[in-house]
């Protein structure tokens, strides 16, 4: 069972959370004017990548806060979790989802893996 690091409560078991799909999909400000195609994109089109994914989580059985996370979809390693409104802390392109952020940064500094 994976652990999710709630930015408000800390690390908790997956069973306390619900998943909210891709993050940073803003509701169009001019939603009344956009075309049907744009509306459909907003409603239905999602990335579903193999690799780094920015996504939403809700600490449903805890503080009830929604927050965002950067997770590797192959390894389930989280790069970071962050509050709504904060800029996504994205990993460098070379991140393969194995090392945690601190481990990755430590190895990059020493130049060794």
């Amino acid at each position, binding site marked *: 069972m*994976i*652990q999710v690091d709630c930015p408000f409560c800390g690390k908790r078991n997956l069973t306390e959370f*619900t998943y909210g799909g891709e993050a940073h999909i803003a*509701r169009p400000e001019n939603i009344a004017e956009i075309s049907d195609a744009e509306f459909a994109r907003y409603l239905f089109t999602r990335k579903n990548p193999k690799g780094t994914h920015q996504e939403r989580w*809700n600490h449903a059985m805890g503080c009830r*806060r*929604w927050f965002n996370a950067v997770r590797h979809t192959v*390894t389930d390693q989280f790069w970071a979790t962050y509050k709504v409104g904060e800029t996504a802390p994205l990993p460098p392109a070379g991140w393969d989802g194995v090392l945690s952020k601190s481990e990755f940064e430590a190895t990059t500094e020493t130049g060794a893996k």
Partner: protein
Amino acid sequence: MAQVNRVTGKGRVNRSKPVSFTFNGKSYQGYEGDTLASALLANNVKLLGRSFKYHRPRGVYTAGSDEPSGLVQLETGAYTEPNTRATMIELYEGLSAASQNCWPSVRWDVGEVNNLGSRLIPSGFYYKTFMWPASWWESVYEKAIRHSAGLGKCPEENDPDVYEHRHVHCDVLVVGMGPAGLSAALNAGRSGARVIVLDENAEAGGSLLTTGEDIDSKPADQWIADTLAELDAMEEVTVLTRTTASAYYDHNYITAPERVTNHFGPRQQGVRERFWKIRAAQVVLATGAHERPPVFAENDRPGIMMASALRTYVNQYGVLPGKQVVIFTNNNSAYAAAIDAKDAGAEVTIVDTRPSPSGPAFEAAKAKGIHIDEGYGIVATKGKHGVKGCEIAPLSNDGRSVSGKSILIPCDAIGVSAGWNPSVHMWSQARGKVAWDPAVACFKPDFCQQKVRAAGSCNGTFDLAGCLAEGAEAGVAAARDAGFDGIAKAPVAAAEEAFDLRPIYYVPSRRPVGEGKKAFHDHQNDVTAADIHLAHREGFISVEHLKRYTTTGMATDQGKMSNVNALAIMADLRGDTIPGVGTTTFRPPYTPTTFGAMAGQSAGELFHFTQKTPMWDWHAANGAVMEAMGDYLRPLAYARPGESTKAAENREVKMVRQSVGVYDASTLGKIDVRGPDATQFLNLVYTNAWDKLKVGRAKYGFMLNERGMVYDDGVTTKLGENHYHMTTTTGNAAAVLAWLEDWLQVEWPDLDVHLTNVAEQWAVCSLAGPNARKVLEKLTSLDVSAGAFPFMTMKEGKVAGVDARILRVSFTGESSFEINVPARYGQYVWEQIMEAGREFDIIPFGTEALHILRAERGFVVVGQDTDGTVTPMDLGMGWIVSKNKGDFIGKRGFDAPEVARGGRKQLVGLLTDKRDYVIPHGSHLVEMATQAPPVKTVGWVCSTYWSETLGRSIALALVEDGRARIGQSLTVRNINGDAEKVTLTDPVFYDAKGERAHA
């Protein structure tokens, strides 16, 4: 004579404590410290059961958790457990066990005919054989196969034992307490890290209990005792024996069932098994290795076992499994077993596949006077219920055939070894890769993304000194990565000779594979080398296909013995290498785990919580028939003695229309909405406008999803300038709250609004009927007359002396008062209402009556009359969608072509031509009754009831262009053959002007 195979002066069993037990009804004696397997072997009982498919006689093959064939039915009745491994059952006084898969007895088994006819039942035979007639599969074939195959029998009573879960965190989890694991735990523990170290066996020590080698110049026993004492003295270290790390999940989450009282036998007080759920920062796997058997003809007779197991029985249990022992090996490791058996008094012969073995082990065996047949293999074995002899012959140089004359060796036990497989199961479960090491001919742990290390023989390091060193390094490294510093200090042991293994997996016999005697690689699922050849011939050459076609490795032993041999035989057939053929992924659990342990405390009443309203006790005491809604159990109806539920519902409907009833509406979702932007928030989440609502007034609203479809509904009351009380449907309550929080927190964080779930803070008594006001007047001094307390308003005051919010809303169509009181007064107020209503013959009514009453009035239930594809306009409720206000969730959805198109399903009423025909729920409506299938359906019935008020059946349906069809006829078509005519009507069947609710 009792315990004929017991050896004096050997073993760790307590000879001053004899233990009595029965096997197949016969009484035996063993000693404290025995397993069932060792005690049976001590009594020279080698035939334990019959095999899965061919009903061949089988006995124990190992001395540990990898046991494939020494499986017994333990105990009886509710305490019985099938397929328990005799090698893992600690002997206790009064133990009772029996053989499996045999009838009438294990020695004389009718099913043995399967073995004689085995040519007719190869792998996959039932797919090929039982093809016709198809109808016979379930009625005849499956029953016959299930009767013939299989092993133990499931208990048929509830499990009477108690189990528990325990959740723990640690810095370092060490799995295994052999030399590597103990060394790792010592070194990690000395750093101050929080360490859990566990082992599946009753005693720590692993292989040391058998080999007895010196460590740090101390005998093994002493070193183990000293190590455990040191670990015990460390405050942050937990030592768990009889605890199997059975599953390795993501983010270092490991589950480990602990056998707490199993070894005392059934009917113990307290917890039987404890299921540990461990979150470890770092893991060290020191799970050891399993000896690999060679696959040779008739290698399954009772008395044949792993060489290391034979040595364990001699050294750990003081049991010599046979007087004439043959050791069949391709490497040096088995020589120690030969020497120990010889020392214990056996006559020993070594059959070594290597043409000219040499080295210290070889010399030591020779010096003991043990005869060694060099370059030989076993080509056949003899004996009916146990091995009586074996036939050996010289192997060719390439090891693919036999040449020369056979020699017959009489024997009553054979110890076999074809090398060692690191126990990489947990590593594999952790998503770790494994790589083939040709030097030691086995798969070893390779890369793993989790925070895990392997140490010792599970890492392919087989010498004791190496295991201790690796354990120490891994323990310190794991602690360091968890934030604790230490310096590795490895316990010291003498250097050892390498295995010097001649890889051989399938040992040839005089006849081609499949034509001679059976050579088993999977002893539990009865799969032979010939089955792999068959799979190969039929094209199942992928390891995944091979596994599924032959069932290799799919038994409860998880292929601990069989997998590598199967891969090797397939690799040979494919002309490929073993790693070229690939491996399958090991999955949890490592060894069979009881359902009781997995369920823990969550059984019976604690399986799932039941939400109860504050008036639950009253309902239960007054004939309530309960129905589940969400996590709630709520009254469906209140049946009087001798009254059917249906009759109760009709009586309740009648009484609400005629006089008065009270309904427990406490299950509704309730959200306290507060903040300067509360009104704006409601405008965004509801379709109607909330700006003009005055304090003390209430409004019904629809929530839509972004696509414009009805999502939830409820009444929201304005309590203060920036304060609302919102209600939601019962089943959707939690989801709606989370959804509203989503919009507030993510999309509109600038709105200053706070949502508080108050669903369980309020008890709600909904008083409904023409006499509702009269009942309420007896309980309150408030003016509740129609003029002073109009429809859709709220009053605060005392009811039965309790602070209450009274709301005039109606879901029944009758004049109603929804009395909200603090939850703790719910049952008191309810009882006061029942008392006050006595003169009006007040009745409690349940959800079914409520639903009939609302259907008569044409009110929808979201989730019953809607299915996520229905807009307010489809329901004929376009009036609830504000044309004047700005944006709200779902507004843009109305512009989508799907919503604008004609022919959408619309809510209508249905009246059956036959007044008493109540349409089955979910029935479909068609235009022509006589059309042959496929028939297009034009709609479906969403609510359907007998209306006691109207004395006829009524229904609501969603029908294409329904409103335009009002007055027309359609036909209900059902799978049961019904074809009944209905007439479409307005969905309101009763009190079309809504006057009664306002009265």
